[in-house]
């Protein structure tokens, strides 16, 4: 009878540990203090909820962004995105993302690419694609699509191509 047992070994961590950053879902600013970071509502503008996203996805200064819920409905717009899409956040909430954005190459038969990116946002690294405001031609944005929260949602960060 043997008391030998398999040796424990270190294995690579399958989870990507990208540093997380907290920012306001409306003004995009980071909470100024640790106390403000624990608050649910942005202490700077008061018009957004403080959410978390990976450092590689989170909006940088001047970038516009959109927050989508798991039902693919829009639930938050940054101040810049309100200007880009010409809509106020209260009027846009609960409308489908396709009412506002579509892939720039939608005519090429890849119209679902944006939706696919949002759906898999929680399970993969941020994806990059080119989008345009729905029904508008000649305006294109590079979009980073990834997960944000809590609660679970998707973040689309727009920057000029």
């Amino acid at each position, binding site marked *: 009878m043997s008391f030998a047992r398999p040796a424990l070994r270190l294995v690579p961590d399958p989870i990507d540990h990208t540093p997380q950053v907290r920012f306001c*879902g*409306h003004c995009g600013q980071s909470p100024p203090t640790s106390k403000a970071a624990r*608050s*649910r*509502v942005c*202490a700077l503008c*008061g*018009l*957004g*909820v403080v*959410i978390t996203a990976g450092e590689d996805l989170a909006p940088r200064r001047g970038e516009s962004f959109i*927050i989508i*819920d798991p039902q693919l409905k829009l*639930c*938050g*717009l940054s101040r810049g995105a309100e200007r880009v899409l010409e809509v106020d*956040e*209260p009027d*846009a*909430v*609960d409308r489908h993302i396709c009412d506002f954005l579509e892939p720039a190459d939608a005519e090429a038969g890849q119209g679902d690419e944006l939706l696919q990116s949002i759906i898999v946002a929680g399970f993969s690294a941020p994806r990059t694609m080119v989008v345009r405001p729905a029904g508008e031609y000649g305006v294109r944005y590079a979009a980073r699509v990834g997960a*944000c*929260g809590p*609660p679970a*949602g998707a973040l689309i960060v727009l920057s000029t191509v």
Partner: protein
Amino acid sequence: MRTLKTSEAAAVLNVSPNTLRAWERRFGYPKPQRSPGKHRLYTHGEIAALRDALQEGLSISSAISRARESVAADTHVLVGALAAFELERADAAMEGALALRSVERSVEEVLLPSMEEIGDRHGTDSAPWALAARWACEWLGRAQRLSPPPERRPTVLMGDATGDQLDPDALALRALELCVRRTGLRTITLPMNGLAGLGDVVSSYEPRVVVIAGGEEQDDDVARWAYRVRASAGALPVMLFRRGGTGRSRTTGARHLAGSPTLAARQLLDLADGGVRHPAAEEPLEFDDIAVASTSRRPRLTA
């Protein structure tokens, strides 16, 4: 119903009072009432619903949308109860509504919209409407009995020009009576067809404003009633409530009150408190082909 001052509501939500006021401007929510000193008073239920929604929302807009939905749920519950003829459940739905809102807002945001929904679904000449309308009138009557006694002397005289109890305008009139009573004013409601002894009643109460509510009575009947009132009480401002049109009446010179009972009650309070003679008071009352002189010195009905 528990209410919170701005600082208390802000503390519950862990935001600054300025943020709360910014939400009110941008989103129209939470919607505070005003204290007698004109300070904001938030209902605890609305603030609690918003606090919970903020934990589950990805933005202020979506949290407010969620909180609004949870507050609007009372209307669905009441419509469901009335459509199923379950009046006890309807009472419970109004109790639930009162936990989140003032009496006035419960009437305005839950009871009246629910009744409108029942009217749209079944028609106002149907048995389901009759059942619901009787229940609603009883509920408003109960709420009126529970209102604090009037603390101000000015009285608002309401001329009931509505049809029977099933007339939707009759329900609106009951709601207006309740809202006026809750502002602290005294109200008396008299039917248009009771002319005998009207002068004695009017002299006894000395009303400061007259409201003619409803569109069922003919203009000449209304004119006769208004003439008797003015003959006893002198020139009084005459306001119209739910009597067609919205601006200044072409024939009567009387002004229309807002369709919302709460707003109409506030307008009446301003009129009664101001104590100033309404410009319309000095003008002759004319209902189509009948002109009624408005001063007590010349009480003459001309055809």
